[in-house]
C-alpha cells in the first residue's frame, strides 16, 4: 500500500503568530523619541551608557531612568555581509548585519549597514543613521547605517 511518489500532494501554508507587545515606559519613550528622529541611550549604575536603553541595569538589575541624548553618528565594529538577501530580510540589495557603537555609547548594538559592496567596509569606520521614511515608533525607524567617512563629525 505504498503510494507512488507522483501521487504525493504538496501545498504551501503559512503559520502566523500575530503578537503585539507592550514595551513598557522606558523602551516606549525610547521608541517615541526614535519616531521624532531623536536618539537616546540610558545611563547604567556604573556610569556607562547603554544603547539601546534597557529598563533594568544588566549587572545590578536596578531600574534605570537617566536617558542620555546621542547623535546619529557611530563606528562600525564588525559585520557579516549578506550577499544574497532572502525574502525575510525585506531588502533586495546586499547589505551587512553590523555591530555599531554610537558615539557616546559604551556598548555596540546590531543593525543593518548599507554599502555598495563588502570592500567598502572597514573596522572602525565612521557611520551615520539612515532614517526610515515612515516612522512608527520602532527600532526599524532607523532604516540602517551608511558611511560617514569624509564628513565632519
Amino acid at each position, binding site marked *: *500500500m*505504498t*503510494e507512488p511518489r507522483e*501521487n*504525493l*500532494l*504538496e*501545498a*504551501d*501554508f*503559512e*503559520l*502566523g*503568530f*500575530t*503578537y*503585539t*507587545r*507592550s*514595551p*513598557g*515606559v*522606558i*523602551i*516606549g*519613550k*525610547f*521608541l*517615541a*523619541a526614535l*519616531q*521624532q528622529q*531623536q536618539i*537616546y541611550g540610558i545611563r547604567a549604575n556604573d556610569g556607562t551608557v547603554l544603547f539601546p536603553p534597557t529598563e533594568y541595569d544588566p549587572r545590578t538589575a536596578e531600574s534605570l*531612568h*537617566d*536617558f*542620555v*541624548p546621542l547623535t546619529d553618528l557611530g563606528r562600525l565594529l564588525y559585520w557579516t555581509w549578506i550577499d544574497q538577501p532572502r525574502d525575510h530580510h525585506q531588502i533586495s540589495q546586499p547589505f551587512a548585519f553590523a555591530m555599531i557603537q554610537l558615539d557616546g555609547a559604551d556598548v555596540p548594538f546590531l543593525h543593518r549597514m548599507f554599502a555598495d559592496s563588502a570592500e567598502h567596509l572597514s573596522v572602525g569606520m565612521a557611520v551615520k543613521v539612515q532614517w526610515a521614511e515612515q516612522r*512608527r*515608533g*520602532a527600532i526599524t525607524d532607523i532604516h540602517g547605517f551608511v558611511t560617514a567617512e569624509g564628513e565632519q563629525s
Partner: protein
Amino acid sequence: MDIDLDPIEQLDAPIYHRYHATSSRAITPFLHAMKRGELLGHLSTATGKVLFPPLGACPESGQATHMPVILSDSGTVLGFTTVHLPIPGSKLVPPFTVANILLDGADQACGHLISECEINAVAIGMRVTAVWRAKEIWNNSLENIEYFRPIAEPLVDIDELQKQCLIKANHRKKSAQGDQDA
C-alpha cells in the same frame, strides 16, 4: 534626564513561518480518498484499532499501519467545546461548537464542527452525521465535510461504546495476528 514624550504603548511583533508541505505516504491515500468522498482509516494490526485520520503509525504500539478501512460518515460525540471568542485568522463565526467525534467503525476520535442544532443541545453521546459540501468543490481535505449535524437517535452511553470498541478491536487484533501466523 527624562524624555518628554508619551511612550509607545504597543507594537506589532508578528512572526510568520512559511512552509511548503509534502504529504507523507501514509496520509496521501487518505487525502485522495477525501476527494472521492470516502473516509479512509488505517487498521493497526498490533492493537486491532482503526485509526482516523491515519497518520501512518499506531500511537499505542508505534508500528507502521498500512491496512485501509473505509469508515461511515456517522458517529458519536465523545466531547465538545463551544467557542465564544473569535480566533484571529479563522473563517468561523462564534459561537460555534467543535467536537471530538468517534466515527462508526473507528477507535480514535477526530475533531470537527457541529451545526444545525442549538449550542445548548450538543451533548456527549449525541449521534451525528456528516454534511458534505457540493461534490464539485471537493478537494483533498477533511473540509469537504462542512460540519456534522445531529441525527434522531437516542444518546449513546460512551463508556459502554468504548468498551464495545475495545472488544471489537481485540477480535480484529486476534484475526490479524492469526492471518500473520497462517
